[in-house]
């Protein structure tokens, strides 16, 4: 089974993607989508991605909720900064955060979260030292930002992935 279907979830996701794009649930499209899903899963084997198992779906749901709130909040905050940029100097700066996450997929998810919330930009992650360098647009206190990201994102990601 594992040989023929190396990444069953990925194949299923690709099938869903195919059906969504084609907007149809006809048997022909389902067959075509399944064939493509299985074929791409084989291609994925050659890329040798890190195997990770999601462990805690409750935490994942809570994290998704937090991210949704933060996206709304930071959008409003960044809009305010841009609109006031003429009158008030923008106080932005770099923040270095020690991160103990090592799982590649978790780091990728963290990068998506930090980018999707405007106001924080991922600049660099050093795999040896585990230091993540981000740039914050409206910086009041670097230590507070570092704490916030560790508590709000890193801790749940560790629970989910490791």
């Amino acid at each position: 089974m594992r040989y023929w279907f190396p990444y069953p979830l990925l194949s299923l996701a690709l099938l869903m993607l195919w059906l969504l794009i084609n907007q149809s649930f006809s048997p022909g499209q389902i067959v075509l989508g399944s064939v493509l899903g299985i074929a791409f899963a084989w291609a994925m084997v050659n890329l040798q991605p890190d195997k990770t198992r999601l462990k805690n779906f409750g935490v994942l749901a809570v994290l998704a909720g937090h991210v949704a709130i933060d996206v709304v909040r930071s959008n409003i905050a960044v809009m305010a900064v841009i609109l006031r940029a003429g009158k008030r100097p923008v106080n932005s700066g770099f923040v270095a955060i020690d991160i103990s996450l090592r799982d590649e997929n978790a780091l990728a998810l963290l990068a998506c979260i930090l980018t999707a919330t405007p106001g924080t930009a991922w600049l660099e992650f050093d795999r040896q030292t585990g230091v993540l360098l981000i740039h914050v647009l409206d910086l009041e206190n670097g230590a507070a930002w570092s704490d916030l990201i560790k508590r709000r994102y890193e801790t749940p990601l560790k629970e989910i992935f490791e």
Partner: protein
Amino acid sequence: MNHLTDLPAWAAIPVCILLLLGSVITLVGSMGLIRLKTFYGRLHAPTLGASAGTILICVASMITFAVLQNRWILHEILIIVFIILTTPVTLMLLGQSALYRDRIEGKNDVPGKTTGEQPDTSGMDI
């Protein structure tokens, strides 16, 4: 022009609000590219359009066509997912190349490599 006038008022109002909000947010993000004065500040501005702008405009599109065609329209979700998945790649590439250049030239108070200390956050006023 087409059958957009068939859209009933109860659907047209939220669609208009969503579209306007999404476009205004994207516009403010584009203005940010001019108003913010450093490269790193400018990295933040387009994410407004990439996150809230895209989501609001896609939701408006979903509602419009779901009401007009009387069925669930979901492929805008794919647009949102792919934009959220792919923007980090571009932004990281841009950010890292800027970081690399600034470190070599010693500009913009960029924190050095391999040091874990709290970087200097004064002097970064835009």
